[in-house]
């Protein structure tokens, strides 16, 4: 990283949460740096660090200020110093941790905004689906709600402004696009993105031993399924 770069930079959020900012844009290499730094800090298992979570362009570190405070320095200064060795020498190239395939039933009742979205994008519904399933995505971060993935990799041809009126209730499993982003709703939530399809998979189950289907850094692809396949898969999951 050039000397003039303002990143990485450590900032306070609260008395017990800081973020390491590695950039200011949504970008695969910036997010890769966040993933690498988060993994390093997690593996170091530092005393007085409770939680580490990557976001698009930053890494959140939750810590116990009392365990970092010293007679001559405050806790934030101490943990900032301790984190510095983890922040540099990040090689480029970002292989996904693993690849997860998400079956999606596009359009119709499963994706009520697909037809309108295709029209706005001046393409057919089939072209829209082909572009969405043809791309390689990356789980940049999970946030907003448990198991909610923010994905990198939406083809530029599929980018359109968010809905003017956000919906108060977006059904669980909805696959949506908005701006440069695409995501999957793990549970019923409010949302302003365009709903283009639905997956029968459960992205978050608080009672399961591994509650979250996805993790930051995962590679992801969508696969189109028919409404009949959707129903079969959903019944299998409920049974």
């Amino acid at each position, binding site marked *: 990283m050039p000397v003039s770069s303002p990143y990485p930079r450590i900032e306070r959020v609260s008395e*017990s949460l800081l973020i390491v900012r590695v950039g200011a844009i949504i970008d695969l290499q910036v997010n890769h740096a966040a993933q690498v730094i988060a993994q390093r800090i997690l593996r170091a298992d530092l005393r007085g660090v409770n939680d580490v979570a990557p976001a698009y362009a930053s890494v959140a570190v939750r810590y116990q200020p009392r365990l970092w405070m010293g007679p001559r320095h*405050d806790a*934030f200064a101490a943990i900032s110093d301790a984190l510095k060795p983890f922040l540099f020498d990040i090689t480029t190239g970002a292989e996904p941790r693993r690849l997860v395939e998400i079956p999606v039933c596009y359009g119709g009742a499963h994706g009520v905004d697909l037809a309108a979205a295709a029209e706005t994008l001046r393409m057919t519904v089939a072209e829209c689906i082909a572009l969405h399933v043809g791309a390689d995505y990356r789980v940049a971060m*999970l*946030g907003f709600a448990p198991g909610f993935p923010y994905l990198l990799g939406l083809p530029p041809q599929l980018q359109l402004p968010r809905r003017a009126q956000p919906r108060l209730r977006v059904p669980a499993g909805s696959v949506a696009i908005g701006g440069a982003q695409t995501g999957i709703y793990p549970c019923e939530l409010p949302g302003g993105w365009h709903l283009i399809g639905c997956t029968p998979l459960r992205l978050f189950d608080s009672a399961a031993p591994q509650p979250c289907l996805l993790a930051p850094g995962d590679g992801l692809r969508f696969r189109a399924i028919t409404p009949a396949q959707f129903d079969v898969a959903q019944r299998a999951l409920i049974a």
Partner: protein
Amino acid sequence: MSLRVIKPGLLSTVQDSGRTAQARFGVAPSGAMDRPALRLANALVGNTANAAALELTVLGPVLRFERDCVVALTGAPIDARIDTTLLPLWRPVHVLAGATLKLAGMRQGARSYLAIAGGLRAQHWLGSASVDLNAGIGRALHAGELLEIAVAPKPQWMEKPGLSWPNWSLAPAHWFEAHQRPLRVVPGVHFDALDAAAQSALYGSSFRIAADSNRVGFRLQGATLELSKPLELVSEAVDFGTMQLPPGGDPIVLMAEHPTTGGYPRIAQVAAVDLPYLAQRRPGDDLYFEHIDAQQAEHLLIRQEQALDELIVELGRRLAAQS
């Protein structure tokens, strides 16, 4: 051995010290809104700091005890009765099997805590019993529900027959403030992006807690705050106490059930020492903010935690001497 919910109250939830190490899956800590009050309720009945207890909101539940228990109430001064006997707050109380505890309104404040010796044997999700309604984890108490209580040793002062309590209590004045003073806030990373009018309005004017405020966040109505120019932000971590500015201009202070990340400008952070005080405010209350710097906020929090630890050690001695 259990506790029956006869009426659930306005919003009663099981809370402990919250979930840790789950933010990378989008799961936030949740936990009590007024954390010292929960910790002290647990300490008063001899529980560990992380034991599960009940957070009650504005109007408490009606509960029937199916065995003898030691309980303690802290936080907002709530009207608590067994038959016609008014129960004191901030001290352990021996309740007999068959008793019905009627928790009614709070004279002031918004949240009381009810701890039971042994702790609630509640379901745990991802290492914590804390309900997080916003995240779809657990649910509020409902009528007819049975809460399991772990068995705890009976202190000697309980051998007296009937409803009883020791002749001492914690001094609530340190942990519940009835009068309204300004909340201390640290400027957030985007404070400088506020225009000059907004910067002075944040410290110079009052904000009212909106009716749609809840455990996720308090929406504040007052001066409309504006940025000097729009910011293009990408989602990143937020915390309990983070004051965000959505496009409408009404700031939102995130509370215990906040999501892990947010994409709005972070204009300020309520000092952690003042979060219990904010948690006790109700919709319709007016708030004022006062600037402090981040080092001061950290120092105040550490001092508060040390004071709480010392008090709990002292309380442990007191309880041991009585049993």
